[in-house]
């Protein structure tokens, strides 16, 4: 075993990369849940995003188009969830599970021809001066665009929810859909839009895994990232800033255990790779004591005649 081989600067730099997929997916789900909808299909939408992004990026040679397609694919799948829960008034837990099972099957089917192919490389931003700062440069300023997109999205969603009228309406719908309806807001329309946004974000997160983090396509490659993203929203008490913090913690654990594997620690690989899931449970235990922050209408079916 050789702990000296673990470079703390590289560790922190790869933490940012490892955190990005779950950060994107969790931010999307945050908006969905603030609108009062519980979409458990994040895993399914992520894996669809992963294959859509991968396939389009490979065929066009453009990672940017890949990410656009991933967002589209994720949103399209989430539309199915929106139809089920907002129009057919189906149970949200069951529909979310259906979405995940369906997404896993569909992605495996779509991805058949793409196993073992390398996607076009995504360039890293080389910010001239900032990137040259020792220590901070490699950690903060030498990543691909999506990392910064994720960070920007945190800021945008935080500001949107806190300061804008749209954010207020979204929260009103999530806290009390009957009151929001009585005030004349289109509850179903707002929720469908939120669900689509959540799907697009999850799709981007999935594509980040298949195009940048891994980068290749294997069946079921999201390996629970969507579920971790769901846990992250609970961890964050439905606040954008704390989603970022949570994503970094999970990213850190993931990267650390990978580094420990590489350093040849005496614990078998299988036990080390359990750690992100165990940490998720631990964090849920710590954070779940305070349930008061959950949107009051979360998971409840809205029907205008009731």
């Amino acid at each position: 075993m050789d702990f000296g081989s673990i470079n703390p600067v590289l560790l922190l730099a790869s933490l940012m990369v490892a955190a990005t997929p779950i950060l994107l997916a969790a931010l999307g789900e945050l908006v969905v849940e603030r609108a009062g909808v519980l979409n458990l299909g994040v895993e399914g939408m992520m894996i669809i995003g992963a294959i859509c992004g991968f396939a389009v990026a490979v065929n066009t040679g453009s990672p940017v188009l890949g990410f656009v397609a991933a967002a589209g694919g994720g949103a399209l799948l989430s539309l199915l969830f929106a139809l089920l829960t907002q129009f057919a008034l189906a149970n949200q837990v069951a529909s979310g599970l259906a979405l995940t099972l369906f997404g896993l099957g569909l992605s495996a089917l779509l991805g058949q021809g793409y196993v073992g192919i390398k996607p076009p490389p995504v360039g890293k931003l080389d910010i001239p001066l900032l990137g040259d700062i020792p220590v901070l440069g490699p950690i903060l300023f030498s990543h691909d665009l999506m990392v910064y997109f994720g960070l920007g999205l945190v800021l945008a969603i935080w500001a949107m929810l806190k300061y804008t009228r749209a954010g207020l309406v979204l929260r009103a719908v999530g806290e009390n859909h009957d009151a929001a309806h009585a005030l004349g807001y289109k509850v179903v329309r707002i929720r469908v839009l939120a669900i689509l946004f959540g799907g697009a974000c999850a799709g981007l997160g999935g594509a980040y895994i298949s195009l940048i983090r891994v980068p290749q396509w294997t069946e079921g490659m999201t390996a629970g990232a969507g579920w971790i993203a769901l846990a992250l929203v609970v961890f964050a008490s439905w606040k954008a800033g704390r989603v970022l913090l949570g994503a970094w913690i999970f990213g850190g654990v993931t990267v650390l255990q990978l580094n420990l594997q590489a350093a040849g620690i005496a614990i078998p690989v299988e036990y080390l790779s359990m750690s992100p899931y165990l940490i998720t449970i631990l964090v849920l235990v710590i954070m779940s004591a305070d349930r008061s922050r959950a949107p009051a209408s979360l998971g409840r079916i809205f029907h205008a005649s009731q």
Partner: protein
Amino acid sequence: MLRFEKRPQPSQVWTYLTPLLAVVITMIAGAALFAALGKDPVAAITTIFWEPLFGEFAFYYRPQLLIKGAPLVLIAIGLSLGFRAGIWNIGAEGQYIIGALTGAGVGLAFYPMESWVIFPLMVLAGALGGWIWAMIPAILKLRFGTNEILVSLMLVYVAEKLLAAMALGLMKNPEGMGFPGSRNLRQYESAHNAELITGSGMHWGVVAAMIAVIFAYILLNRHILGYHIRLTGQAPRAARFAGVNPARLVLFCLGTSGALAGLAGMFEVAGPAGQVSIDFNVGYGFTAIIVAFLGRLHPVGILLAGLLMALTYIGGELAQSNLGLPAAAIQLFQGMLLFFLLAVDVLTNYRIRLSRSEGVA
């Protein structure tokens, strides 16, 4: 303009019709999917649904129906109890794996001793393993208020890693030339979950599934605990006033589903699968969720739904080898079934009306 009007009572007729309708719609959509993949849709559908039952080699496939159906029914029966009460155990796959590990572990510990005690002990160990794994989300939910969906699901991934660790480490066959995987329990008579009647596919897991169906039926229709489960699902507040103890329900529902999933895993590893291997689990725990919903969370319905789902597994394999249909297409097919079921379910609870003008909603 279409308008939904909530029924005062869920429609009895549609409760029975919607699963059938969903199956028919799934067949149509599936046929379209297979056609899009460039396969003959009629041939694909008949290969999946007709060949295993009445085709040339039906004598081989019919027993498979019991072998594949038993774990699905066993797990789904357990899940349905919780689903009725709004307790969502999504981690049956993990409990299934742990049950297989503990069951096989007990069997392997006795190797090469031969005794009639070993198999019953393995059954107990399997149930206990699944029960313990399900108790983790149950106790965390009661003690800390964590979400049982997320915890039970995270534990699936933990169980999968544990399975890999066991297949490569502790339980690896010492005479296996270094290949991963345990000793084959099928070659160890005391631990083998053999067919009870040769060629019928009937093994102890099938018997357990039958017993589970009967017990669940009696529990839900004739026992106060079953009444409490149904009451909690339909009117949580009323249940509280009626003196239902929610903590007891959580422990009972998660524990029972865990134990049944563990049993299913144990019967599988000691019989059809034979050994603990890295890819031992094939997703029965997740498919059982579809089975539970398709069976309307009713024991008899689940029995029928489990057999139907087993048919899609067998027919799917057949279509894979005969028509070159990708395995993923079958997975997708099963996912679609749940989708359509949830969609047509609106007919059970709502009446669809055509309204000419926008009424006062």
